[in-house]
């Protein structure tokens, strides 16, 4: 008898967890959103009661996982070409929509004045400079573009180290293993609680604006469509835009 009771309880538990799982929306999130997504997640939960499970990674890595069958419902990318490639390959029903524009900043955990960073980066006291891998991370590409446009790329190239995503660049900055790093402005606000960072914006004319695109994925359409749609609408709503702005993104 006791055994049967136990089985029943565990079965019940199983059902509850399955039900809870169905409620949770799996959202693939580009690494530059790692701080703002927590705020969006809490706000969305408050407004709709729906839980989301963010899976954070570099956009390239996430796209690979999606193409190989990862069960994600919505994808918030760091650029527009990755979600476009998903749309073209049939992994999403609709074309991507731009939900925000990201700003590039140059940042350090050491007390240095970064206003004139073009000159500073060439000086000897700047040992290592972190950028995200330009081949796979949009903010890395933007950083590379800015370095080329200012004409200092050849001089600073020996100092460059490459993070596999913007999140690793952030780690390199906060642990002080690099003197400066190029990251997204959203990182500054989140890191503020733990470490004092010194930073300056990179002039918008020096790099192509980082358009960040979003799509509902095939998996989301098939299994979680109603919630996925709610989240999609929420990300484009004024409430979410206010949060994005607060974290240093552009919205229109």
């Amino acid at each position: 008898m006791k055994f049967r009771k136990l089985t029943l309880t565990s079965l019940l538990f199983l059902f509850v967890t399955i039900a809870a799982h169905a409620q949770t929306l799996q959202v693939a999130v580009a690494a530059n959103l790692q701080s703002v997504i927590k705020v969006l997640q809490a706000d969305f939960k408050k407004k709709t009661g729906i839980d989301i499970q963010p899976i954070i990674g570099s956009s390239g890595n996430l796209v690979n996982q999606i193409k190989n069958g990862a069960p994600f419902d919505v994808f918030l990318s760091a650029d527009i070409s990755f979600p476009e490639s998903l749309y073209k390959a049939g992994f999403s029903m609709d074309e991507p929509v731009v939900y925000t524009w990201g700003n590039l900043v140059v940042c350090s955990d050491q007390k240095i004045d970064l206003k004139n960073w073009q000159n500073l980066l060439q000086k000897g006291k700047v040992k290592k400079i972190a950028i995200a891998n330009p081949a796979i991370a949009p903010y890395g590409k933007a950083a590379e573009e800015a370095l080329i446009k200012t004409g200092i790329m050849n001089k600073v190239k020996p100092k460059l180290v490459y993070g596999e995503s913007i999140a690793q660049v952030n780690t390199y900055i906060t642990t002080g293993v690099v003197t400066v790093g190029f990251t997204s402005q959203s990182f500054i606000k989140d890191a503020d609680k733990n470490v004092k960072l010194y930073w300056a914006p990179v002039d918008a004319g020096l790099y192509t604006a980082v358009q960040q695109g979003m799509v509902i994925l095939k998996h989301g359409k098939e299994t979680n469509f109603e919630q996925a749609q709610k989240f999609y609408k929420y990300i484009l709503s004024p409430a979410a835009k206010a949060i994005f702005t607060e974290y240093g993104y552009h919205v229109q």
Partner: protein
Amino acid sequence: MDWSPIWLTLRLAIITTSILFAIGLPIAYWLSKGRSLAKIVIEAIITMPLVLPPSVLGFYLLIAFSPQHGIGLWLQQHFNIQFVFSFQGLVLASVIYSMPFMIGPIKSALQQLPVSLAQASYTLGKTEWQTFIKVLLPNIRASLLTAIVLTFAHTLGEFGVVLMIGGNIPHVTRVASIAIYDSVENMDYATANAYSLCLFVVTFIIVIAVFIFNKRTAKIPLE
């Protein structure tokens, strides 16, 4: 195709294996003789990389060698050495990380030799050094080869630590495993396949060579 990640990987593996062979022999010999608390503790520390995730080592190296404070700052100021984002950093990490693969097989082979072997040599008037070089080592040739090959192969396959402290710098720290990871992320499967195939073939040749060689001397190939 850019071959530099393959050469870099081979260079790292050769240097790491040479260093480990040089420091591994005396350590293994010392560990194989008798037991004491110090030996148990040191052997445990040497063996730990076998079971610890590479990210643990990567994390501690990242913190320890940050040029902002502690050892990292000291090294930077006195010797102008930076271990993070440099080839010597990868060598250091690989030496720590592959150490059990070098010391383990040599130590157990030395322990399994009959004590009378060394004693006979001493009785005939040979010193401990002469005995070690001329009597003990030739008798554990198969295990020496196994240790060298395992260390080499393990260093070829290193990924986690390099990902954390390497910084993915072309020609400096972008080893083959990292280049594969990059190409896959970039959806460049052709390049990923080229590098992967290289590692696959090299590893296969090495392992099969050991199997053939050891078949004559050992009962099981990886003894």
